[in-house]
């Protein structure tokens, strides 16, 4: 007879009861789907049939070598990301620097700048859709009023401007988020450092380049990588404005994955696209972690 310690057993059971609901949901909706994606990626399956045809790595081969639209979508997302990294984060940093130092009403600006990030991508897309509209859009109206009638166009339907217009909408929605994080980073810098430097005769630029930038490097890297991850996975704004058009000019990876899944019922292929995309994003976050570790060692 093995002696059973009932008190101990009861104790363990109650402990497990605490984590059981979380663990159950997590297994069903996170862990299982995670492995299912890898399994499905080597099959040809329409999502309905009981039979799945094993195709090995064909889906990945198709994705990499035979699907130009996939790489177009990657390039589009990369372009939006690059524009966002440059302009959105610069604007966010400039605003954060200004608000951090010389302005009253810090809280007012923080509340207003963070308003667009609170709205959904659908709402933002639908409102801007009308601003950029070709026939009765507000932007064209304003341009005509300023005597720049020649510049008017259907901004979101013109292949030349569609992608950039989407990027503008995305940045309008996103800069407040970068602003809030950068401002918090700036406010975490001890004031005494700046003041000591000023007493020692350092100018504004010197303080910025020798104190602010080194101390903010980890925050810069964090904001950059979150910008990259968020922008590469842009979707709501696309679907509520251009839906990928005109042609493939604003297709992004998530819309392509959805087209493969819902449009052409190739679940396996959609999964392989998802894995490829996930690996690329993972590589980006790994680089960020490395850089972040490196920068915190030197600051």
């Amino acid at each position: 007879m093995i002696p059973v310690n009932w008190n101990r057993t009861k104790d363990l059971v109650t402990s497990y009861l605490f984590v059981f609901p979380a663990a159950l949901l997590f297994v069903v909706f996170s862990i299982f789907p995670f492995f299912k994606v890898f399994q499905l990626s080597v099959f040809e399956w329409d999502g309905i049939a009981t039979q799945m045809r094993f195709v090995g790595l064909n889906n990945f081969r198709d994705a990499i070598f035979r699907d130009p639209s996939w790489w177009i979508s990657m390039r589009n997302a990369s372009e939006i990301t690059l524009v966002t990294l440059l302009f959105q984060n610069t604007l966010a940093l400039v605003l954060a620097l200004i608000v951090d130092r010389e302005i009253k009403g810090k809280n007012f600006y923080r509340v207003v700048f963070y308003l667009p990030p609170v709205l959904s991508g659908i709402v933002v897309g639908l409102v801007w859709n009308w601003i950029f509209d070709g026939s009765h859009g507000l932007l064209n109206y304003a341009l005509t009023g300023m005597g720049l009638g020649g510049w008017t166009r259907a901004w979101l339907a013109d292949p030349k401007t569609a992608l950039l217009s989407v990027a503008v909408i995305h940045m309008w929605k996103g800069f407040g988020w970068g602003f809030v994080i950068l401002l918090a980073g700036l406010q975490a810098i001890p004031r005494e450092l700046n003041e000591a430097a000023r007493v020692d005769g350092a100018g504004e630029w010197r303080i910025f380049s020798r104190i602010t930038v080194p101390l903010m490097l980890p925050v810069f890297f964090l904001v950059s990588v979150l910008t990259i991850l968020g922008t590469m996975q842009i979707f709501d704004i696309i679907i509520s404005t251009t839906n990928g058009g005109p042609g493939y000019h604003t297709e992004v990876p998530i819309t392509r994955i959805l087209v493969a899944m819902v449009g052409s019922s190739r679940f396996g292929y959609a999964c392989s696209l998802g894995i490829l995309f996930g690996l690329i994003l993972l590589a980006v976050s790994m680089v960020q972690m490395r850089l972040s570790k490196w920068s915190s060692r030197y600051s």
Partner: protein
Amino acid sequence: MNAILTPPRPSEKIQFQLWAYKIKHWARHGAAELVCLTVAAACLFPLVWMVASSLKTQSTVFSDMSLWVSHPHWHNYYEAWTRGHFSRYFFNSIFYTGIVVFGVIWISSMAAYAFSRLEFPGRNVMFIIIISTMMIPIPGSFIALYVVLNKLGLIDTRLGYILPQINGGLALGIFLLKTFFDKLPPDLEDAARIDGCNKFQVYWHVAMPLAKPAVAVLAVFNALAVWNEYLLAMLVLSNRSLMPLQRGLMVFQGSHITEYPLLMAGIAISIVPIVSLYFLMQRYIVAGITAGALKM
């Protein structure tokens, strides 16, 4: 005596320098204010214009570009609410948001409490696995999620839209609350235990009331996420009577593409609750983003 106490008058030159400094200071200050005000105006303008347009009529909306509507056409809101079915979408969104927020807080606080305070085999492994999903991006997982929901018969059901979202909030919730519980001094809980409380009672009556600030952050964040969610709603829900607002907006836009005033009224309806919540709780939101982001 008087001559010693009154400071000497600054010479002409020093006075000039003083003025130059003051002007420079004000110029800088003014420029800074101007930049910030311009950006703030750019943030608010599309929203003001949206509200203004929602009060115009179909015939004036394309010709009258003014921001101030002298004869507001409130009837648009009634039309959107009834004919556009926004009442249904609205209450669906309220329902989904309430249930998911409640579920996330309840389930993640229990788990976080266990990870922080209770001893059981597998504790650390489970915690690390759950937290690691915050770090690994899996953009294709919604395909497999759809397959799972299909197998469970949850496609086009409210439950099928709710459960994955509760799960989606768990990682952040457990992480935030566990860090919070870790920092709480255990004395109060010990006292409660000595007074005869069992584990659930200690968790519910002692730990949870203390965790209110963290719970508030969590509630706001999840409310925003659920209210604004679109992709899952698009995949899971095709029955119009189950759709939340974001989905409803797209459906409305698809079928009434030219009725801009009504669409804008629908958008205004859809943002009122979330913007109010934001204004009421913005302190927690700012605290949450900065804490979450800077600790990573």
